[in-house]
């Protein structure tokens, strides 16, 4: 670790501009290439906004059911059919044990690629999706890639734990989990982190968690209760119910941390 302390770490910049209405993109936003992955839980109420930002939309198995049945309730369209024709995922991937036959048929007829991975029972549907996204993304586009995932939190606890593990397994990719209440993402220890806060859509509640292993030294700026080379560990101190106090939060740690921030009531 000595050489790492001598040279300064690369800085990783984060922004939740994908939560803004598309026309309100700040001029200086890095050109992120968003991919959306929809898992099998209730859609967050701002799903149309995420869909608009994404260049590629993938439903993980039963996530397709959610788009089919719940999207019509989120739009002002006259009828369900209009909505369904507007929100067609490019890919439906997974072991196909949850997707309903009529949903599969509908999207297949509309041109969605059905990628049946039922032979692979070793990994979760999310793992399969992230793996195939990484596989199909050219190297020069990888640094801009940001994967937005809905439906990864809540539900069965072992599913949530497995989904969080995907953040650690693919720690070199930007992956953000979103729910109605909050977003979470991994802050790898290999980088210093700069998190730009869009206070119109997120905050003020936030937190930092050493889920994989304890941290012996974490330092932050921009929070109401900043950390200064603080130790963090489950069973001891972890940062919950903290408050964002600035437009920019910085985090540097000797351990991988999960960052979370609450979401405002977005429609």
């Amino acid at each position: 670790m000595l050489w790492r302390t001598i040279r300064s770490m690369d800085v990783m910049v984060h922004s939740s501009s994908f939560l803004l209405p598309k026309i309100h993109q700040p001029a200086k936003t890095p050109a992120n290439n968003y991919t959306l992955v929809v898992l099998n839980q209730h859609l967050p109420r701002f799903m149309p906004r995420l869909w608009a930002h994404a260049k590629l939309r993938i439903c993980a198995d039963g996530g397709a059911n959610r788009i089919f049945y719940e999207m019509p309730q989120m739009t002002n369209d006259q009828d369900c059919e209009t909505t369904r024709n507007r929100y067609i995922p490019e890919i439906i991937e997974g072991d196909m044990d949850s997707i309903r036959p009529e949903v599969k048929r509908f999207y297949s007829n509309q041109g969605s690629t059905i990628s049946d991975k039922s032979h692979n029972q070793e990994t979760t549907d999310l793992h399969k999706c992230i793996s195939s996204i990484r596989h199909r993304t050219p190297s020069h586009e990888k640094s801009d890639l940001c994967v937005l995932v809905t439906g990864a939190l809540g539900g069965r606890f072992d599913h949530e734990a497995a989904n969080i593990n995907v953040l650690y397994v693919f720690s070199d990719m930007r992956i953000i989990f979103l729910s109605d209440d909050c977003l979470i993402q991994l802050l790898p220890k290999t980088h210093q982190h700069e998190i730009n806060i869009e206070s119109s859509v997120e905050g003020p509640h936030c937190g930092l968690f050493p889920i994989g292993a304890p941290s012996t030294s974490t330092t932050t700026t921009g929070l109401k209760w900043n950390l200064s080379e603080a130790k963090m560990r489950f069973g001891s101190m972890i940062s919950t119910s903290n408050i964002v106090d600035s437009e920019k939060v910085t985090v540097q740690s000797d351990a991988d941390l999960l960052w979370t921030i609450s979401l405002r009531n977005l429609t």
Partner: protein
Amino acid sequence: MPLPCRQQLRPGPNRQRLRQLGSTKKRKKGYAPSTRPLVKGSNLCFLFVKHKYTNSFRVPCSLLIISYSGSAPHRPRRPRHATSPPPGGDQSAIAPMPLPTMTHSSSFLLPSPPAEAAAAADAVAYAVIVLNQRLPRFASLLWTRAQLRVCADGGANRLFDGMPELHPGEDPDEVRARYKPDAIKGDMDSIRPEVKEFYSNLGAKIVDESHDQDTTDLHKCISFITRNPPGPDKANLCILVLGALGGRFDHEMGNINVLYRFSNIKIILLSDESLIFLLPKTHNHEILVDQSIEGPHCGLIPMGMPSSSSTTTGLRWNLDNTSMSYGGLVSTSNIVDDKKVMVTSDSDLIWTISLRNHT
């Protein structure tokens, strides 16, 4: 058979018996960090740190901390059942004794629990805590099981609104009077005034702790219950928590951290889909599974610390001195294959099992 008391440690060859640290004495605010050896002649220490935005510390003696210094790599602890001799070749040393066994059961979810279990002298005394999330479908059942019921702040709103919904066709106020909490505790920034007044008029104790912003509402409720345990013996206490999972992620993490902070008390977090509880590394664990109410999906999660060795029986994919860590293997979507699951690990693990859909 009485549940083993997690606070006790077996005296080793050169050790004094450790003091119980899960006392109910209120800690003074603002005390400085201190490190003090508690065991003569040993290299064990306890680190107490009071931080302004964390829970007050109660490190039970079953949770020992070997502090990490600077950038020293983490060395996983040797499993407690390893039998290599202590350094220095102490001739009087004996092999470590096997870990005590802790038994777990979800019988509180049965529609009618076994009569002999309820009548036994060492019967489990249940307490229920309701946090500020939608009530699970079995809330009424757990309420009936419990001898002490506490709402954490906005949990009272959920009880007020949610119980009549679970009993459609009945008069809402009659339902609310039947399912009234013994206490409502927390910083009172979420409870609606009319809800507070309603339960206060029915005799619920309102404990306003808004002066204490250092601990979560769940932490405050657990502390309250340990000071006012429902049964005669705190060793038989089991606290069931509704609304601790899902919702805001930092709340969920704070709630899980409470399991680690109070690792000497049986605390179970429940949602509609699953339940979770801590398996402290200080014990072998025997989990009795009733397939009529739970399973088959289960998992073991090394939250907060990797495990270099975990071993199980009774699962479809058992672990055999297996390492687990975030970024590596985490046991999820496992299947319970037996009425009894055994778990031993060198690290605290979170056990989770899915709940069956029974109305």
